[in-house]
């Protein structure tokens, strides 16, 4: 029951940061195994959700940082050049096509677009918008400058903007 109450939140947190469902499932498993070790204090604790979210965030960041150096060349060969990751994702949707989809389908589309962002942009964006980190906290946690954090988030927003407009979740005349 405890796990069912929180598993979507924990998986979402890991998946939106990691951008990979298989890794997110591994991380979510580790989160609940840790929770089991502290189950006596978490069982009836109203802050259990916050604890799980923090652990999921930390485990995901640790996981990504542990493997980043090892796998960077493997996963980001296409995005190492200076600004080539600024392009919008995918072929743009017609202006109102996604607006006609149900909310669940829209969420899935947006989640998929977030997961396809380059890792440095996705991490900064997800930490800022999903996990309430400040720019400074993101820079400190990822070991990058404040300016890079702001640039990455701005570019990620710009990449997502056409899809968000198409879904009708931001104003159609919004400029990046």
């Amino acid at each position, binding site marked *: 029951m405890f796990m069912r109450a929180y598993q979507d939140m924990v998986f979402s947190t890991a998946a939106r940061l990691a951008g*990979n469902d298989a890794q997110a499932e591994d991380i979510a498993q580790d989160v609940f195994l840790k929770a089991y070790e502290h189950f006596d204090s978490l069982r009836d604790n109203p802050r259990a959700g916050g604890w799980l979210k923090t652990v999921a965030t930390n485990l995901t960041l640790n996981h990504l940082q542990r493997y980043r150096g090892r796998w960077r060349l493997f996963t980001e060969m296409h995005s190492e050049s200076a600004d080539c990751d600024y392009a919008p994702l995918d072929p743009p949707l017609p202006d109102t096509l996604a607006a006609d989809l149900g909310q669940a389908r829209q969420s899935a589309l947006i989640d998929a677009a977030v997961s396809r962002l380059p890792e440095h942009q996705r991490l900064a964006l997800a930490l800022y918008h999903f996990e309430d980190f400040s720019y400074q906290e993101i820079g400190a946690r990822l070991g990058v400058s404040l300016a890079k954090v702001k640039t990455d988030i701005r570019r990620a*927003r710009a990449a997502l903007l056409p899809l968000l407009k198409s879904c009708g979740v931001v104003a159609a005349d919004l400029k990046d």
Partner: protein
Amino acid sequence: MNESQKPQRPQDLLERQVDRALRGLAPRRAPRSLEVRVIAELARRAALPWWRRRILQWPPAARAAFIVVCGGLIRFAWPATGWAIAEFGALRRSGAPALSWIHYGAAAVSGAAQLLNVIAGALPMSWIAAGLVFAAMLYAALFGLGAVAYRTLYLNP
């Protein structure tokens, strides 16, 4: 990491609207396999004998005994190391036959080094350079193959 640090700049319409749109996303649904995996892992851990679990989960008596044994080993290790070094030096000075294998090992390593030196001296420099380039290309090709396989089979199955 709290609400007061979130978008406070009313002029930044894009930031606020994207923030609202992303926060409005429904949570991702966890795969059904997650619960099964967690329960299976907990069952596996529960089935482990106590000595294969983390020391904090050992029975108190076993933990106490472990600490005593470790303390004894540490207490014993320092004088034992000194004694072993002294004894080894004495044996070496006396030319004991029990240590002859060390001389054989050293001779083998030295011989291999001399052989490599002779081979390197006999080969033309261009052969050595070509060999190094070939090895580097082979390494790069295998690395690239691994990267493509990883991206194709794992990231985009």
